[in-house]
């Protein structure tokens, strides 16, 4: 979005984040979301455009698609007048919905010129799942009232967080997570463009670390760039190596069934100091499942416990206690 970066006073050039720099600028650049792209291309040719709802895991290109579409739709001269971009970090309570969005929708369109294919205004609402229920309810009236002149593009991660009336007014498009090869490809292009060569393995690790989220991978690359340029082998290993959790977990699997309680307590203490938090419990459980260590009956029980522990930790409880709880129960079920 053009107002994304604050321009520095003259001397230094704008330093963009790589996510912005390499964001796809046209619909063709968007990888792997064919349905959406086809539909949008059709709209560019003058066919009608419904309200849209883009949802899916983070880092799959939802915001980029919306922006690219708008950029292709409106020439830059009328871009500002026709497109409004509201985000979770802006004020988005009910009052803002009513005032700002209404005000924007109400202003009449400028004179049409030949390039103006679609006589509509577009409002992009990013991260809609963070809006309160009341604000969403207010929004649905606004969507209805102004659908003659304005189209809404809603972007969110979880459709379940939106109220049904809002969802039913839009055409839903699910953005699939990008497959591994596509991601690695993109990462390599970026790396080469920025002059930080990386090996295939390292790229794969970055990608795994980001768990399918392309934006996260690019961010990681950018953040690590200074270290990678100046640092040595050990630095690369330190940051790019898979987390130490894997080692801990495999150790754990071997020793758990036979340890007694005091051992487990001290083990928990040491894990708490070095583990990455709640993800540890999840990964541990995953590993146990993969190794088939838990019998069928207990999978449900353990699954439930993992969910409960995670909820508790995310609410702010002590990691050690919950980890202890998890490990002790695990030990009993394995036996």
């Amino acid at each position, binding site marked *: 979005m053009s107002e994304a970066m604050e321009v520095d006073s003259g001397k230094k050039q704008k330093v963009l984040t790589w996510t912005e720099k390499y964001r796809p600028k046209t619909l063709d650049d968007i990888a792997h979301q064919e349905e959406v792209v086809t539909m949008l291309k059709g709209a560019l040719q003058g066919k009608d455009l419904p309200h849209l709802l883009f949802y899916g895991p*983070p880092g799959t290109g939802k915001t980029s698609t919306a922006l690219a579409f708008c950029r292709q739709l409106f020439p830059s001269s009328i871009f500002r007048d026709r497109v409004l971009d509201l985000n979770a970090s802006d004020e988005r309570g009910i009052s803002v919905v009513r005032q700002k969005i209404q005000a924007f929708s109400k202003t009449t369109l400028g004179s049409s010129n030949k390039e103006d294919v679609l006589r509509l205004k577009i409002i992009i609402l990013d991260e809609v799942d963070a809006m309160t229920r009341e604000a969403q309810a207010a929004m649905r009236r606004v969507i209805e009232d102004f659908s003659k002149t304005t189209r809404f593009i809603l972007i969110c991660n979880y459709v379940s967080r939106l109220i049904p009336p809002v969802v039913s007014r839009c055409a839903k498009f699910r953005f699939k997570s990008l497959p591994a090869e596509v991601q690695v490809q993109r990462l390599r292009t970026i790396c080469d463009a920025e002059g930080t060569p990386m090996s295939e393995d390292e790229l794969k690790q970055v990608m795994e670390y*980001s768990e399918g989220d392309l934006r*996260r991978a690019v961010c990681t690359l950018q953040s690590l760039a200074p270290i990678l340029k100046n640092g040595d082998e050990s630095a690369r290993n330190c940051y790019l190596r898979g987390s130490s959790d894997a080692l801990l977990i495999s150790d754990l699997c071997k020793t758990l069934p036979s340890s007694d309680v005091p051992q487990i307590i001290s083990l928990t203490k040491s894990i708490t100091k070095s583990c990455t938090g709640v993800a540890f419990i999840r990964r541990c459980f995953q590993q146990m499942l993969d190794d088939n260590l838990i019998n069928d009956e207990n999978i449900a029980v353990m699954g439930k416990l993992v969910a409960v522990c995670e909820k508790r930790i995310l609410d702010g409880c002590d990691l050690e206690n919950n980890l202890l709880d998890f490990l002790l129960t695990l030990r009993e079920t394995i036996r």
Partner: protein
Amino acid sequence: MALWVDKYRPKELLGKDGVDYHLEQAKHLKFLSADCMPHLLFCGPSGAGKKTRIKCLLRELYGVGVDKTQLIMKAFTTPSNRKLEIQTVSSNYHVEMTPSDVGIYDRVVVQDLVKEMAQTSQIEASSQKSFKVVVLCEADSLTRDAQHGLRRTMEKYANNCKIVLCCESLSRIIEPLQSRCIIINVPAPTDVEVEKVLRKVIQKENLNMPDSVLQRIVEKSEGNLRRAILMTEAIKMENEGGIPANAQIPVPEWEVYIQETARLILQKQTNDMALKVRERLYEVLSRLIPPHVIFKKLLEYLLPSCPSSIVREVVSEAAKFEHRLLLGQKPIFHLEAFVIAFMEIYLTNASKPK
């Protein structure tokens, strides 16, 4: 009169007055500050040295001007016209604050602060960095709202304002925020490292400390360097003449009190005892000890005396009640509920035929 913790705090990343452990990491931090600096997220247990490193990094970036700090009460107005005040520590180049002080309004405060920092540019743009730094402490108590708001703000003002977050555990930081920062994991120092630092301090203070006492301090601090240094200072205060080999490490009084309470619980498990325990818990609560700390300590003192068969049940109950404690309004309910649950479990176990 400065505490030793502040007197002997390292003032730079590497070099004579540099940090004493995690040296590789310090080197990397130096690289980051030289080049285009990203947003940072420092995480690690308490007393491991996160704040120290942040300070050193700031000095690396801006020089000694960073040390001239002032305590300013900044005022903010929420959209619902409510006035808030929050205390910030700021210098010409950076601002440090704890957003959780304002509770649920932290989003407004954080965003306003970042915008303000981003808009006021540096005076001499040539010799200095083009950005300012905002340090947010206790980032894991930021509300979800605040974190979501922060992620876009971080992108928008990335050029003028770098954000450094400081938290104890990554679990409560949302993923998008994690992906926008570099995560600097500052693990707790090992016992050897703690000992090394303590020896340095002792030497500088010309203190005579027998090894046994030192060892005990190292053990008791459990990787929390701040606690270790404070304990050392406290021991010195207690034993003005000289430190005997069997000097006791002063434990905070409330800890002893809780230990006593735990002993009482293990001794007798009846309603009357529960009442007495309740009185004692009130006493500790009135000293402003946070309830979850009481909980943890209580559990710590109870567990060793539990027979193995009931440990799991006790821990599971503890986790359950701690969770409720965090979300509820009246901590004493949950504390007492846990105590009674423990009593019953213990009692039924004790009366089971072996």
